[in-house]
C-alpha cells in the first residue's frame, strides 16, 4: 500500500481494499504463448547468406539501430496505430498467419528492396482476398524515392478519390484488420529505416482506404517516413494538413517531433 497518499484522499473501504489486494498477484501468459511471443520478438540468428557484400546483418538487434531522435512518448504516440483494432471475434486470424507475419517482419528491410519485396514482406496475403476490390487496376508499386504519397485527407474532398471513398468512408469493421495490417507493414518498415517502403505501405493504405478508420494514423506514419527520407518540404506540408485535419490528434506530438527532429 502506498503511504504517500495525500491526507484528503479517501482510502478504499476495507473490503474493497482486500479485493484489490487479492488481485495484485500477476498472472502471465501460458508457456505456449510466451514461447510464441519470444519466437516472434527474439528470433534466432539466421545462418549467414553471404553474397551481398556488406548487407545489414539480419539480427533482431537491428530493431535498436534507430529511433533515437524523438522523445519516447512522441514515438510511442506515433506507433499507437491500430494496434489490436480489428482483431475482433468476427475476424478470426489463424495463429499461423500471425506468427508467419512476424517472422517476415523481423527480416531486415533495405531501402533498396526490389518491388516484389514489399509484397513478400506483407504480413499476410489473405486480407487481399477479403478486401473490397479496388475500382481501378492496381497501380505498379514504386520503390524509388519518389513514391507517391499525396493522399486525400478525410476532411478534404478529392475528386479523384470520391468514388472509392464513398465505399470506404463508411468504414466497415471488416476492413479494420486489413487497414491494421497495411499500417503494420508501414510501421515495421519505418522501424528499420526503410522509409520508402513505409511510404509505399501508407500509399497503399491511402489508395484502398482514403477515409479509413486508421487514416489519421496512416498520415502520422507517412509524415514520419517523409521526415526520415529527408523529404522535408513534403513532410512539413503534410504535417500542416494533418494539423488542420486533426487539430486534437494525440499523434500531433509525434508529428511535430518528426518534423522537428528531421535531419538537417
Amino acid at each position, binding site marked *: *500500500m*502506498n503511504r*504517500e*497518499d*495525500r491526507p484528503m*484522499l*479517501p482510502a*478504499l*473501504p476495507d473490503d*474493497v481494499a482486500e*479485493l*484489490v489486494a*487479492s*488481485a*495484485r498477484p*500477476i*498472472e*502471465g*501468459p501460458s508457456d505456449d*504463448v*510466451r514461447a*510464441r*511471443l*519470444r519466437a*516472434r*520478438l*527474439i528470433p534466432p540468428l539466421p545462418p549467414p547468406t553471404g553474397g551481398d557484400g556488406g548487407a545489414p*546483418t539480419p*539480427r*533482431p*538487434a*537491428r*530493431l*535498436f*539501430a534507430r*529511433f*533515437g531522435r524523438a522523445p*519516447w*512518448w512522441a*514515438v*510511442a*504516440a506515433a*506507433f*499507437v*496505430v*491500430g*494496434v*489490436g*483494432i*480489428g*482483431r*475482433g*471475434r*468476427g475476424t478470426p486470424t489463424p495463429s499461423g498467419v*500471425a506468427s508467419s507475419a*512476424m517472422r517476415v517482419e523481423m527480416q531486415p528491410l533495405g531501402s533498396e528492396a526490389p518491388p516484389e519485396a514489399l509484397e513478400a514482406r506483407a504480413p499476410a496475403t489473405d486480407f487481399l482476398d477479403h478486401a473490397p476490390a479496388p475500382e481501378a487496376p492496381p497501380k505498379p508499386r514504386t520503390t524509388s524515392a519518389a513514391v507517391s504519397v499525396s493522399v486525400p485527407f478525410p476532411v478534404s474532398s478529392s475528386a479523384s478519390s470520391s468514388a472509392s471513398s464513398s465505399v470506404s468512408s463508411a468504414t466497415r*469493421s471488416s476492413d*479494420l484488420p486489413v487497414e491494421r495490417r497495411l499500417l*503494420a507493414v508501414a510501421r515495421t518498415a519505418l*522501424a528499420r529505416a526503410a522509409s520508402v517502403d513505409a511510404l509505399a505501405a501508407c500509399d497503399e493504405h491511402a489508395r484502398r482506404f482514403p477515409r479509413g478508420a486508421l487514416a489519421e494514423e496512416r498520415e502520422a506514419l507517412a509524415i514520419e517516413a517523409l521526415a526520415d527520407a529527408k523529404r522535408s518540404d513534403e513532410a512539413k506540408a503534410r504535417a500542416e494538413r494533418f494539423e488542420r485535419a486533426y487539430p486534437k490528434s494525440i499523434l500531433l506530438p509525434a508529428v511535430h517531433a518528426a518534423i522537428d527532429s528531421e535531419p538537417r
Partner: protein
Amino acid sequence: MPEPTEDAAAARFEAIFEAELPYVWASLRRLGVAPSDLEDVAHELFLLVAQRLPTADTSRPLRPWLFAFAVRFAADYRRLARHRLDFLGDVEPADGAPSAERRLMTRERERLVLLALEQVELDRRAVFILHELDEVPMTEIAPALGIPLNTGYSRLRIAREEFVDAVRRLTRREKDTP
C-alpha cells in the same frame, strides 16, 4: 561501433521481455484488452519497447515506463466499441450461486476486479492500476503517464469512487440474481 551497442540493447530487451512479460500481460488485461487479443497487442507493445529501449531513461523505474506503453496501446485498442463487448465476453455472467470451491474464489475475485476496472474511464483506470494494484507511488506515476502530480491525485480519487461503486453494483447484482 554500432554492433556492440545493438547487441547490448538486444540482450537488455530480451532480459526485459523475460522478466516483464507477465507484468505487461496483466497490465494489458487490466486495461481492458480481451484475452483473445492479448498476444497480438503484447507483441506490438514489445516491438515498440525494443525500438525505444536504447533511448530510455534507465534511471527511471521500468514498470511505470512499460505501463505507459500499455495504456497507449490499450487506448488505441479500445477505440472500437466491439472490444468492450469482447472484454465482457470472456467473463461468464454471474449465475447467482457463488462457487463453493475455494479454487474458484480467486478467479471470481479477479473477474470482479476486472469488471469493476472496466467501469472506470481509461485515464483514471491507468492511475488506479498503477497506484492500487502495482503499488507505484504517485510521484512515479505522474511522470510515467506524463501528467501533473495533482492530476494524478485527482484521477485516483475519482477512480477510487468509481471502482468502489462498480464493485458494489456488481456484487449487488450477483446477490440479487435468483
